C-alpha cells in the first residue's frame, strides 16, 4: 500500500511541468549559491567548485529550495481537504497509518529528488560560463553526495516532518508554512550571530540546518582540504545532526500517532456545533420592508472606505491566532532586548535606545514575511471564503473594497510596529535606561521608513499590486515572499549593492552612530523613501486597476486603457506616479552616483586598477615629501564642508631632480590653487576621473632641496550617499573624523589605492601580490615609513575652527582655544617630528581631565556617554605610569582621548591624541571584568603606540605592523596583567584568539608567517600580540622589555625592521624553547 501511494504520487508529480520548473530553479540556485559562497571566501587559491563551498551550499539549503519545499510538501496530505477528496478517499479500504506514511514518504522523497536539481547545479557550475576554467577543479561528486546525504537529506526530512506535524495538528497549510519559515528564521539568526560573534557550541548545535557547525569545520580546513577534502563528521556537527534528526523523528511520530481519517478528514472548524434550525412561521409580506433610500455619492464611498477598513481591521486583529503571533513576537523582542549585545566584540552594553530598536532589523525578515503573508490572505479573503461572487456584484467600486483592505493592513502593521516600540520603551526602562531614552529615535526607527511601520506599508503595496496582477492567492504569496527574499539575498550575497534596487529600503538603516546618528543618511533616506512612496502609489493604483472583479480577465482586457476600475484621474495618477518615480530615481542617481558619492565595488575596483596601470610609473619617479605643515583649517559641519590653506615645506630626499609636483586628491576635494614661494603653479596634468593633478614647479627641486608650497583647498560633499563602504565620516554634522590624507593630497603615487586582494587583482588583470607590504629587502621601502610614504617625520602647527557648539581636534600640543563670531578655534603645535598619521575632527563633546605625573590627560566623549570615562581616564593614568617606569618615559606631556563614530575604524594613536570608536567601550556595560579588561588593554595599547611611534623609525616593509601594532599590543597586555591580573589577561587573549579564529579562514591572499606579517586585521593586533605575549612569557617580562629597549635605543636614527627585533628576542629564548618560538613566528599556524 505504502509503495503504491508513493509510486502514484511521484509519478503524478514528475509528469507535471511545474516540477520541471522547480528542478530548473534549483539548478539555478546551485549556480547562484556557489558563486555567492565563492565570493564570500575571498581566498585567492580557493576553487569555485571547492568542496567546502559545496558543503556550505548543501547545509544552507537555499531560499529557493526552502520556498519550493514549503510549496510542495503539504499538498500531498492537504489536497484531500482542499479539494474535498478526503470525503471518499478516506472511505477507501486502506489502513490510515499506512496511508499517512505513504503520503509522508512520497512528500519527503519528492523533496529529495527535487533537491537533486541543486546538486546538479553545484556539480555543473564549471559548465555554466561563470568563471574561467582555471577557477575549477574536477567535479567532486563524492564530496557533493556526501554533503547531500549528510546535510541536505536530513534537513529535508526535518522540514517535511515539521510541516506534516503542523498540518496534522492544525489541518491548515498556513501552520506548515509558518513552521518552515520559523525554522529558516532560526537558521538565519544563528548564522548571522555566528558571523558576528563567532561560533559558540549553542549556535553550532542549535542551528537546525547544521550550517554553523559546517562553517566551523570548513573554517579549520587548510586550503587544500577546502578545495578537495571531505567534511569531517566530528565535533558539534555530530551533535547537531543527532539533535535535529531526533527532533524530526519525534515530529514524525507525533504526527503519525495523531493522524486519523476521522480527525484529519473533518473540515477545519467543524468541531463547532451547527446551530439548530428552528422554523418560525412568517406572515409578514416582504414588500413593506423593501423601501430603503439608496445613495451612491463619492462622499458615501469615502465613508464606506473608512467603515470597511475598520471592519477589515477587526477581521485581522480579532482572531486569537493574530494575538498569539503578536504575543510570540513581543516575547522574542523582550528576550532580545534583554540579552542582545549591540557590539559582540565588546560585550553587553548600556540600555540605549539604539540597542532597543535593533529588534526591527534582527527579526525584520520574519516580521516582514508575516505581514506579506497576512496581506495576501486579506486581499483574497473573499475568494477564500467564496463570498466574492456576492461581494463582487455589490455596487461599490473596487477602489473602495480593495483600498479599505490596504488601509486595514496598514493599521495592522501600525499596531505591530507600535507594539515593538512600546515593548522597547518598557524594556529600556526596566533595564534602568529611562534617562537614556530617545523617543525621537524610537519613533524614527520603529514607525518611520527606517525598516519600521512605513516600510511595512510599502511592502503591503507590493502585495496589493501582485494580487491584482496575478488574481491568484497562491501566486501572490509566492511572488511577494519570493521578491522580498530575492532582494534580501541579492544584497546579502553581494549580487546587488545599490539601495536603488532594494525596494522600500533606505540607506543607512543599519548604520546608526550614537554620535553622528544617521548623519547624511537622514537626507538620503528622505529621498529614497519619497521614491519608494511614489512606487507604492503606482503599485496601489495598478493593484486597483488590475484587480479581477468576478471571473479572471484576459491580459488584453486587464491592460486595456478603457478598463473602468479606475477613473481618468486614477489612470492619470498611475502615469504621474510613474513619472515621479523616474524623476526621483534620476535625482537620486544624480546625487548618489553621478556626484561620485557612491561607486559600486566592481566599478571602484576597475577604477583603482586603471589608476595602478596608468600611474604605476609614478612610484618609480622621485617626488618631494611633506616635512613641515602649517595648516589653517575650517570645518563647516552642517554643510559637510571644510576649507583650508596649507603651507607645506617639501623636501626632495632623492638623488634626482624634480620638476613636477603630482598630487592625488580624495573624492570631493578641490585644489583651488598651488603656490611655490608665492608663485602660482600651472597644471600640466589634469585627470579628474582618477583625481591626479600634476603641477609644474616654478623652481625645480634638486636633491635635498626644500620648497615652500601653499595649497588652497576645499572639501565639499555635494548631494548625498547611500549605505556602503564610505559613509563620508570625515565631514559630518557631528563627529567628523578624518585622516589628514582625506583632506590634503597624497604626493606622487598613492599606493593606498592599490587593490590588495589577489583574486580582485587577477580579475582586473593585475599581477598578484606575494605580500601586501614591500619585501624586507626593498631598498626604497626601507627608507619610507608605513604611515605615510609621501612624508618624512613632520612638524607643524594647525589652527582649526568649527561651529561654536563643537570642539575642533587636531594632533599636537594644544596652544590656544578661542570662540568668536559663532566659531570655536583651537591652535595645536607638533613641535618634534612625528609620523604623518594625523587626524582632524570636530564634535560636540563633554570633557573630563586626569593627570599622570607630568602628563595632562583630557577625555572627550559624547555627552550621552559618561558611563566609562573614569575607566578610560584611569587606564591612561596607569598606562603612562607604566611606560614612564618600564620604557623610559611616555613621550607627551599632554594627551587627548576622543570618542569617535564607529565608521572610520576602532583605534587611532597619533601625536598627543588617541581616538577610540564609540563601539569599543564607551557605552559598554562594564560590570564584568572581561569588558573592563578589554577597555583597559585597548586604551593602554594606544599609549604604547605613541611610545613606539616616538622612538622607532619603522621601515615600510613586511613586519612593519608587528612593530607599530603588535608590539604596543603586547606592551598593553603587560600593563593589563600588572594592573588587573592574570585572569583579565587571559580573557583579553581569549578574545584575540576568537578574533583570529573568526577571520583567519577568510584571509584573501596567503597568510604570511608573523616575521613577514603584512597588515591583515587578524594578524598583527591579534595573532601577533598573542605570539609576542607567549614569547615574553618564555623569556620573562623584564628580559623581553630590555631586548626591546636595546633594539630601539641602538642606532635610533636607523629604519627598523621587525625581523631584526625577532632575531634579538630569539637569541634570548632558551634553546629548548626555540623551536616553539620559531613555530609561532616563522611558520603559518593556527593558534
Amino acid at each position, binding site marked *: 500500500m505504502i509503495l503504491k501511494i508513493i509510486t502514484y504520487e511521484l509519478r503524478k508529480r514528475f509528469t507535471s511541468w511545474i516540477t520541471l520548473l522547480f528542478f530548473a530553479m534549483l539548478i539555478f540556485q546551485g549556480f547562484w549559491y556557489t558563486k555567492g559562497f565563492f565570493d564570500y571566501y575571498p581566498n585567492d587559491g580557493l576553487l569555485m567548485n571547492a568542496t567546502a563551498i559545496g558543503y556550505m551550499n548543501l547545509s544552507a539549503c537555499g531560499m529557493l529550495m526552502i520556498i519550493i519545499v514549503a510549496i510542495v510538501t503539504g499538498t500531498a496530505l492537504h489536497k484531500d481537504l482542499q479539494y474535498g477528496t478526503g470525503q471518499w478517499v478516506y472511505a477507501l479500504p486502506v489502513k490510515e497509518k499506512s496511508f499517512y506514511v505513504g503520503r509522508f514518504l512520497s512528500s519527503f522523497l519528492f523533496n529529495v529528488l527535487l533537491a537533486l536539481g541543486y546538486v546538479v547545479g553545484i556539480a555543473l557550475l564549471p559548465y555554466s560560463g561563470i568563471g574561467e576554467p582555471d577557477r575549477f577543479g574536477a567535479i567532486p561528486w563524492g564530496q557533493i553526495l556526501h554533503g547531500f546525504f549528510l546535510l541536505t537529506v536530513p534537513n529535508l526530512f526535518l522540514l517535511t516532518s515539521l510541516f506534516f506535524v503542523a498540518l496534522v495538528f492544525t489541518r491548515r497549510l498556513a501552520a506548515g508554512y509558518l513552521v518552515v519559515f520559523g525554522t529558516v528564521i532560526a537558521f538565519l539568526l544563528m548564522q548571522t550571530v555566528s558571523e558576528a560573534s563567532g561560533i559558540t557550541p549553542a549556535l553550532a548545535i542549535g542551528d537546525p540546518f547544521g550550517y554553523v557547525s559546517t562553517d566551523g569545520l570548513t573554517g579549520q580546513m587548510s586550503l587544500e582540504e577546502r578545495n578537495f577534502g571531505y567534511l569531517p563528521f566530528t565535533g558539534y556537527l555530530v551533535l547537531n545532526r543527532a539533535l535535529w534528526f531526533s527532533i524530526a523523528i519525534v515530529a514524525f511520530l507525533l504526527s503519525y500517532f495523531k493522524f486519523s481519517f476521522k480527525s484529519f478528514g473533518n473540515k477545519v*472548524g467543524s468541531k*463547532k*456545533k*451547527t*446551530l439548530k*434550525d*428552528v*422554523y*418560525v412561521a*412568517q406572515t*409578514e*409580506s*416582504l*414588500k*413593506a*420592508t*423593501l*423601501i*430603503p*433610500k*439608496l*445613495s*451612491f455619492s463619492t462622499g*458615501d464611498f469615502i*465613508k*464606506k472606505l473608512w*467603515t*470597511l477598513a475598520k*471592519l477589515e481591521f477587526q*477581521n485581522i486583529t*480579532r*482572531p486569537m491566532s493574530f494575538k498569539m503571533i503578536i504575543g510570540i513576537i513581543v516575547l522574542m523582542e523582550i528576550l532580545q532586548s534583554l540579552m542582545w549585545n549591540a557590539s559582540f566584540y565588546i560585550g553587553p552594553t548600556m540600555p540605549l535606545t539604539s540597542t532597543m530598536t535593533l529588534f526591527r532589523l534582527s527579526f525584520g525578515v520574519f516580521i516582514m514575511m508575516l505581514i506579506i503573508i497576512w496581506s495576501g490572505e486579506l486581499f483574497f*479573503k473573499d475568494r477564500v*471564503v*467564496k*463570498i466574492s*461572487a*456576492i*461581494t*463582487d*456584484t*455589490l*455596487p*461599490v*467600486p473596487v477602489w473602495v473594497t480593495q483600498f479599505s483592505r490596504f488601509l486595514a493592513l496598514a493599521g495592522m502593521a501600525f499596531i505591530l510596529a507600535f507594539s515593538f516600540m512600546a515593548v522597547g520603551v518598557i524594556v529600556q526602562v526596566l533595564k534602568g535606561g529611562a534617562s537614556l531614552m530617545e523617543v525621537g529615535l524610537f519613533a524614527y526607527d520603529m514607525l518611520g521608513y527606517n525598516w519600521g511601520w512605513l516600510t511595512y506599508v510599502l511592502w503591503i503595496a507590493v502585495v496589493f499590486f501582485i494580487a491584482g496582477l496575478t488574481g491568484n492567492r497562491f501566486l501572490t504569496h509566492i511572488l511577494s515572499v519570493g521578491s522580498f527574499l530575492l532582494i534580501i539575498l541579492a544584497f546579502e550575497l553581494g549580487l546587488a549593492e545599490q539601495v536603488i534596487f532594494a525596494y522600500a529600503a533606505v540607506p543607512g538603516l543599519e548604520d546608526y552612530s550614537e554620535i553622528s546618528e544617521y548623519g547624511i543618511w537622514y537626507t538620503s533616506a528622505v529621498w529614497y523613501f519619497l521614491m519608494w512612496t511614489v512606487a507604492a502609489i503606482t503599485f496601489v493604483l495598478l493593484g486597483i486597476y488590475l484587480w479581477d*472583479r*468576478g*471571473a479572471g*480577465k*484576459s491580459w488584453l*482586457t486587464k491592460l486595456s486603457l478603457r478598463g*473602468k476600475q479606475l477613473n481618468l484621474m486614477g489612470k492619470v495618477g498611475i502615469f504621474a506616479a510613474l513619472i515621479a518615480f523616474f524623476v526621483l530615481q534620476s535625482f537620486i542617481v544624480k546625487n548618489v552616483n553621478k556626484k561620485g558619492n557612491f561607486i559600486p565595488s566592481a566599478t571602484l575596483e576597475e577604477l583603482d586598477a586603471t589608476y595602478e596601470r596608468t600611474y604605476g610609473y609614478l612610484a618609480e619617479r622621485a617626488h618631494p615629501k611633506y616635512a613641515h605643515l602649517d595648516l589653517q583649517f575650517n570645518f563647516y559641519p552642517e554643510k559637510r564642508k571644510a576649507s583650508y590653506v596649507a603651507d607645506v615645506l617639501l623636501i626632495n630626499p632623492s638623488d634626482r631632480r624634480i620638476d613636477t609636483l603630482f598630487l592625488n586628491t580624495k573624492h570631493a576635494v578641490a585644489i583651488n590653487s598651488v603656490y611655490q614661494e608665492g608663485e602660482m603653479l600651472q597644471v600640466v596634468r589634469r585627470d579628474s576621473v582618477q583625481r591626479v593633478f600634476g603641477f609644474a614647479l616654478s623652481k625645480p627641486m634638486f636633491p635635498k632641496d626644500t620648497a615652500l608650497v601653499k595649497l588652497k583647498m576645499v572639501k565639499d560633499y555635494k548631494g548625498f550617499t547611500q549605505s556602503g563602504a564610505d559613509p563620508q565620516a570625515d565631514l559630518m554634522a557631528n563627529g567628523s573624523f578624518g585622516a589628514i590624507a582625506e583632506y590634503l593630497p597624497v604626493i606622487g603615487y598613492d599606493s593606498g589605492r592599490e587593490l590588495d586582494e589577489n583574486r580582485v587583482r587577477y580579475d582586473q588583470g593585475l599581477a598578484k601580490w606575494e605580500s601586501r607590504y614591500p619585501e624586507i629587502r626593498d631598498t626604497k621601502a626601507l627608507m619610507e615609513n608605513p604611515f605615510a610614504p609621501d612624508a618624512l617625520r613632520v612638524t607643524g602647527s594647525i589652527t582649526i575652527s568649527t561651529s561654536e557648539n563643537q570642539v575642533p581636534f587636531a594632533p599636537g600640543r594644544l596652544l590656544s582655544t578661542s570662540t568668536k563670531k559663532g566659531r570655536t578655534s583651537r591652535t595645536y603645535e607638533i613641535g618634534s617630528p612625528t609620523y604623518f598619521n594625523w587626524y582632524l575632527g570636530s564634535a560636540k563633546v563633554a570633557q573630563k581631565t586626569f593627570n599622570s605625573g607630568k602628563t595632562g590627560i583630557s577625555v572627550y566623549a559624547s555627552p550621552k556617554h559618561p558611563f566609562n570615562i573614569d575607566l578610560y581616564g584611569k587606564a591612561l593614568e596607569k598606562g603612562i605610569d607604566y611606560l614612564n617606569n618600564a620604557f623610559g618615559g611616555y613621550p607627551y606631556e599632554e594627551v587627548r582621548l576622543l570618542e569617535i563614530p564607529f565608521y572610520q575604524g576602532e583605534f587611532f594613536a597619533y601625536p598627543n591624541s588617541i581616538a577610540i570608536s564609540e563601539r569599543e567601550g564607551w557605552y559598554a556595560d562594564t560590570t564584568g571584568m572581561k569588558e573592563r579588561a578589554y577597555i583597559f588593554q585597548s586604551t593602554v595599547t594606544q599609549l604604547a603606540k605613541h611610545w613606539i611611534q616616538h622612538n622607532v623609525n619603522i621601515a615600510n616593509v613586511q613586519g612593519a605592523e608587528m612593530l607599530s601594532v603588535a608590539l604596543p599590543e603586547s606592551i598593553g597586555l603587560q600593563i593589563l596583567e600588572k594592573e588587573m591580573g592574570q585572569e583579565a589577561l587571559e580573557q583579553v587573549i581569549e578574545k584575540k584568539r576568537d578574533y583570529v579564529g573568526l577571520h583567519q579562514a577568510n584571509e584573501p591572499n596567503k597568510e604570511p608567517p608573523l616575521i613577514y606579517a603584512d597588515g591583515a586585521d587578524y594578524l598583527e593586533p591579534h595573532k601577533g600580540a598573542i605570539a609576542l605575549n607567549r614569547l615574553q612569557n618564555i623569556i620573562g617580562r623584564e628580559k623581553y622589555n630590555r631586548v626591546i629597549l636595546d633594539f630601539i635605543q641602538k642606532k635610533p636614527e636607523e629604519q627598523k625592521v621587525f625581523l631584526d627585533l625577532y632575531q634579538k628576542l630569539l637569541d634570548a629564548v632558551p634553546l629548548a624553547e626555540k623551536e616553539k618560538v620559531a613555530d609561532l613566528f616563522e611558520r603559518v599556524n593556527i593558534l
Partner: protein
Amino acid sequence: MKLEIKNLSKTYPNGVQALKNVSLSIGKGMFGLLGQNGAGKSTLMRTIATLQDPDAGEIDFNGIDVLKNPEELRKVLGYLPQEFGVYPNVSAKELLLHIADMKGITHPGERKDQVEALLQRVNLYNVKDKKLSGYSGGMKQRFGIAQALLANPQLIIVDEPTAGLDPMERNRFYNLLSELGENSVVILSTHIVEDVSTLCNDMAIIGDGEVLLTGSPSEIETSLNGKVWEKQIDKSEYIGHKDRYKVISNHFHLGRMLVTVVSEDMPDSDFYRKSPELEDAYFNLLYDHQKITA
C-alpha cells in the same frame, strides 16, 4: 422593466464555447432558465451579474448598458450565486448590515430595519447574532437569499437557489420569489424542471450554450399535446425500444421501467397516452438537440 440580451457569446480559454449567440428578452416577473449541467446557465448568470465579460453581444437592463456600465446595474441587482461562502467570524446580522451598507442603504436605521425584516423572512432572526461558521447548509442558503434581496433590487438573479433546502424551506423560498416577481425581473436558473413549472411565467431552455426554446411553460407543455406516450416495460426491453422509438426519458415506478416516447401516433398497443408535462417537452427538446449535434 426589461432585460434584453442580444447575441451573447463566450468562449473560455480552454476552447469551451459556453455561450453561442444567446439572445433573450426578459420582462417583469419570474423567468426560468432551464438547462443541463454545463449547458451555460451559470456563465449566462455570471455575465448578467457583471462577474464575467462576454466575447461579444449586448445586455441592456432598463436602459443600462450592462457591459459598459456594470456599476449602474450593480445598484439594482440582487444576486444569489450557485456556490458562495460567508465570513466565518461574523454574525448574519453583521454581514447583512455590511452588505446593505455596500448596496447603498446609507441610513443606519433603514439598514437595520431591512436587515431584521429579511432575517425574519428567511427564518434566521433567532440566530441573527450567531457566527455564520455555525450555520447549516440550508441556513447559509437562506442567508444568501436574504443578502440578494437587500436594497430592493429590480433585477434578481438566483442560480440554483433551492440546492440544499429542505422541502419546507424550498416552498417558503418559492413564495418569497413569486412575491418579488411582482415588481422586478427575477431570473431563476435551475436544472430542476419542477421549479420552473411551479414558479415561472416565462422561460428558456438552454443547451450547449444555445437558447433552444423560449416561451411560457404552459405553451411549451401544450406543444406536445397528444404526442406523448408512456409504457411499462422490462428493463431488458429498453434497448429495443430505444432503437425503435423516440424514447425521451425513462424512470422506474414500483420496480418496473416506464419509458416515455414522443410520437404522432400510438407506437404500439401497450402504450398509453400521457398528458404532456414541461419535463417531457424539455427532454424532447434535448433529444432533438442531441440528435442534431450528433
